[in-house]
């Protein structure tokens, strides 16, 4: 979605995930990159090299924060220390929005450090939306929730994943970080048409889009972020930008990370589809 209240009224283009193997390249070569996404938890620390690098990046680039452990969908209360540290980082980066996953991962204060799938129930949607609101109110920046890749479904689910996502974002009045790779992975693991998912998304709420690669196993697909984006995912991306328009897009590459240039080149392939969406709007 172009500038809206869900992305802090920004018009970001294509970004890539800021990863440690690229630090030297970025700081010495200063490559052109519209923006970087950081994993918030990597910088929610008291000092040292990570924060110094971040400050140097912030001097030259726009940064958006993406989290991996807020666990909006956990039944337990939010972790106040986590929230406080996240807020300190938000002040530092001046991120126009923050995102985290529509999932859970902790019980009774014990963390799995995984993005566990939600049961798609109205009770879960209500609890999750309430926590998204609490986080947004505390951080005082827009929040976008990201759909995750999943490998299991629950008997108790009362709706599809995309209906659940819509239920949560409507109740929370928040944005969506639409991960089209995750939609593809889950569609293969749970046998649904991924275009049904993309076609059901409330377009005005999409603050950002993620693209990534994955790994295919004999009986399932794992979201590994260690490969280039495959064609079926690009097709989903094309459909998504047809619907939502020119939207901040981010390539995730977290394992077997190639050179900065390779990652950047892969991300820039999104331009073809973003340009089409702009042309379509003009016509």
């Amino acid at each position, binding site marked *: 979605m172009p500038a809206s209240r869900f992305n802090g009224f920004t018009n970001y283009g294509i970004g890539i995930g800021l990863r440690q193997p690229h630090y030297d390249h970025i700081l010495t070569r200063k490559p052109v990159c519209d923006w970087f996404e950081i994993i918030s938890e990597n910088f929610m620390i*008291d000092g*040292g090299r990570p924060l110094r690098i971040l400050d140097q990046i912030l001097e030259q680039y726009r940064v958006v924060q993406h989290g991996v452990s807020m666990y909006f969908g956990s039944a337990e209360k939010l972790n106040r220390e*986590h929230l406080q540290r996240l807020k300190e980082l938000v002040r530092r980066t001046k991120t126009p929005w923050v995102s985290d996953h529509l999932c859970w991962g902790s*019980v009774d204060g014990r963390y799995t450090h995984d993005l*566990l799938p939600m049961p798609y129930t109205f009770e879960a949607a209500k609890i999750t939306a309430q926590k998204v609101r609490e986080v947004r109110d505390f951080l005082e920046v827009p929040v976008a929730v990201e759909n995750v890749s999943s*490998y299991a*479904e*629950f*008997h108790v689910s009362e709706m599809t994943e995309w209906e659940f996502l819509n239920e949560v974002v409507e109740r929370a009045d928040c944005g969506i970080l639409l991960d089209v790779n995750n939609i593809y992975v889950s569609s293969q693991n749970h046998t649904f048409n991924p275009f049904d998912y993309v076609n059901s998304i409330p377009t005005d709420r999409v603050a950002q889009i993620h693209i990534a690669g994955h790994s295919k196993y004999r*009986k399932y697909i794992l979201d590994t972020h260690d490969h280039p984006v495959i064609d079926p995912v690009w097709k989903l991306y094309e459909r998504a930008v047809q619907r939502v328009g020119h939207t901040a897009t981010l390539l995730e590459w977290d394992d077997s990370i190639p050179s900065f240039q390779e990652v950047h080149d892969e991300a820039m392939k999104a331009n073809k589809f973003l340009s089409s969406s702009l042309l379509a709007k003009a016509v």
Partner: protein
Amino acid sequence: MNLDAIQKQMTRAVMTPLTPSEHMQRHAPGGGDMRRYASKFIKPNDRLTSFERLEIYNRQYWWRLLSSLQEDFPGLRAVLGDRKFEAMSKAYIVDCPSTSFTLRNLGAKLEGWLRKHPKWAGKQQQLALDIVRLEWADIEAFDGKAEPALQTKDLATAAGGDIQLQLQPYVRLLDCKYPVDDLLLAVRETDDDNEVASNAFSEKKKRRRIRVTAKLKPAEIFLAVHRIDDSVYFRKLAREEFAILTSLRHGKTLARAVDSGFRKSHMPAEKRAEAVQAWFQNWATLGWFCQPAQKKST
């Protein structure tokens, strides 16, 4: 089944240790059959049973946490050996699951836990404890807070022995029975080499790592784990230095700290003033002193 109940049920299964062949246990938490346990809340599909779908998360959990400990404690791994380190890690994670939003803190309780469970290190218990303390100090020194440092001239103008000097939060002080700083540097060097080595070469390096550990003789050392330009360093300290710095960390005044530093010292009295001056000069140059917290607001 409500959200809370589903999440508790799934977490119990996910956190259940894997079998030796890295599969999900056949026995469910609390007894019974894990297949039945999984099928109560997880749907099967045309390719995977409920058990197999749950197993994906179970394996991911263990692989992620074990690899985090392996990355953070290569020295302890060298001391215990690969197999024992992995078994110990599993037992530790069962007893002390992560209670932090970041895996950075996973090893925070390892020293205390290892102390209570000496069977894992056996005769090498003291060496294991020393290396764990050093590796944890390394983590804390890497991203610990740095306050604005006091300069040498600030120290020179500081009035009298009643002054309280505060150490930078990122500076960690350790007294060890083994020279684990040398050991850890040797292990890291070997591990770095392995990153570009072939499998055959790795075997050779691994044998060298084990030899380095086996040859290590006890020798009492005092260390400051600190950082310069964002890189962590281990600095050996004299016993007196360690005692003075530890006293300062505990909030003693300068005069009391210096007194306690020499309480058990064999250093000739006439050399002490010169030594203290040189130490303070070094510590200040390294930026180890910062403003006491209570004075920041004034």
